[in-house]
């Protein structure tokens, strides 16, 4: 079942006088349960692609369809709501709200979704235990290591029960041990809970773990391999 589909995606930035073609016609489908890496050198258009499928940016041309909804046609307000309910995000760094504890950060997104307090609390603890931070519930991000912070971010991303999780270079700031741990954890979640992960990276270790690697360059897909 396709959960994400892009059709003839184009993105042109109007940088002053010279238009920059960041994406030049990308057709892509992602199925439920995938564990996919999008790779490419910097300036390849990979971040732009990720932003567009995450509903953070709009295509100049083409369509992005998530579960049958053309998200590029949504108003900013509806789009924000759509992201809240359908997409989980893990960013490179500074993912978390610094004034909230790990527990509150995870709970926060369910709070935004308007879920019941009892459900929120229960799920938060489950999730943080699942990412191995059951003992750091009440620590604020400043007291957590980079790896721990990213795990909280993953816990938060899946807390909202999204259709898929988008992770933009989630390991860029981590050492190899933490990178390994984070990837193992994500893989486990993918395997056991059937959560779809799409992540961008230029880290060979990460690519190795991915089951499908899509390589982007000059705004087009140059290769798409499934292991």
């Amino acid at each position: 079942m396709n959960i994400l589909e892009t059709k003839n995606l184009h993105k042109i930035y109007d940088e002053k006088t010279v238009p920059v073609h960041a994406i030049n016609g990308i057709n892509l489908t992602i199925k439920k349960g995938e564990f996919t890496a999008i790779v490419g050198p910097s300036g390849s258009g990979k971040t732009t692609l990720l932003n567009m499928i995450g509903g953070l940016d709009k295509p100049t041309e083409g369509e992005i369809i998530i579960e049958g909804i053309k998200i590029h046609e949504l108003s900013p307000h509806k789009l924000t709501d759509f992201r809240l309910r359908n997409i989980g995000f893990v960013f490179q760094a500074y993912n978390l709200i610094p004034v909230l504890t790990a527990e509150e950060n995870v709970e926060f997104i369910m709070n935004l979704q308007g879920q019941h307090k009892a459900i929120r609390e229960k799920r938060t603890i489950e999730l943080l235990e699942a990412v191995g931070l059951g003992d750091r519930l009440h620590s604020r991000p400043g007291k957590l290591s980079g790896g721990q912070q990213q795990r909280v971010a993953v816990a938060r991303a899946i807390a909202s029960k999204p259709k898929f999780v988008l992770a933009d270079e989630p390991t860029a700031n981590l050492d190899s041990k933490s990178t390994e741990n984070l990837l193992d954890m994500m893989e486990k979640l993918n395997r056991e809970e059937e959560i779809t992960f799409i992540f961008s990276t230029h880290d060979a270790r990460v690519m190795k773990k991915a089951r499908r690697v899509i390589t982007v360059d000059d705004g087009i897909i140059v290769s798409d391999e499934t292991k």
Partner: protein
Amino acid sequence: MNTYIKLAWRNLWRNKRRTIITSSSIVFSVFFACMMRSMQEGSYDSMIGNLVKFYSGYLQVQDTAYWEEKTLENSLEYDSALIAQIAGIEDVLLITPRLESFALSAYKENSKPVFVIGIEPEKEDRIIKLSQKIVKGNFISALDDGVLVAEGLARFLKIDTGDTLVMISQGYHGVSSAGKFAVRAVFKHPAPDFNNNMVFLSLAAAQNFYSAQGRYTSEVIMVEDHFDVKPAKKVIAGLLPPNKTVMTWNEMHPELMSMVEGDRAGGFIMLWVLYGVIGFGIFGTVLMMVNERRREFGVINAIGMQKVSINLMLFFEIILLAFLGALGGLVLTTPAIWYFYLHPIPLTGDIAEAMAQYGMEPYMFFSIRPVIFIIQAATIFGISTGIALIMMISVARLKIIKALRS
């Protein structure tokens, strides 16, 4: 909602120093503004109070021509029915007739023009508390033919209780009038102007002196406080025949009122400047706060928090900051002002003399009118709301992609 307030509160303490400095600036401005306004209003209250409580009363009924032309020709005939009617009005505490005019007073070779007020001693005492101001001698009764002399005047004339004061004037219908009056008492009036030229005597004695039997120039009316003045005026005006009019205390002292207005306006301008400066400071701080957090705002917007909600959180943050400052300012100010309200600061030396020349008591009075404090809190609230709105526009324009990259 709770979550936003909690977030706002914690965000405020992310940078403790900055929050403390910013709210200190608000504490400072609120403290200063309250002190200054309290002193201003305190001194107006004292000036107005001296006039209202020790002289004019809150309202007066007069002949329509009397205010423009204060002669005995424009005096009134005693009308007991009207007086009873006015006295019966709910807000009116007291009504008492007066006969006011001027005279040349003399004792031995010294003379001085004086302001003469014929009163019903017992009633008048309940308005201007004259008997409490007596420094020597005894208060007069209704049928007394003696006078009460203000302390400054007595000093000038070198007259004392028991001596005889001579007064010469022009009576009703231009009759020349002259009389000798035993000085029954010397009193001290808080307003230096009055203290230097005021003479009280019984209404009967005054009417006799001015050949104005059964006449009076005004009816002084006392109400509970100045809030009752307007309604009382309305009712009284309805009762009066066309040749009589009712005047309120502020209509009777237009120069004072206009000076108070001018002084108050000057004070407001100073405070606007102060608040303007403080406002810019808060704006600068909030701007830094928002700029530092552009990425964070981008992240929470990306994961699904609506901009409206981000703005709500930001709004709470700014308002909380202002609230802290305003609260601190009021907590600091209230006891100080309360103390000084009960114990006005006495002034000495040049400033005291200067104030006496302006007809003011040489004290620094404070006012505890709630409106002074409410206005300061409201101003701070207004400023911070304005700043919050500007910031909200900036958040509303936030581009997620750019914010995430910053």
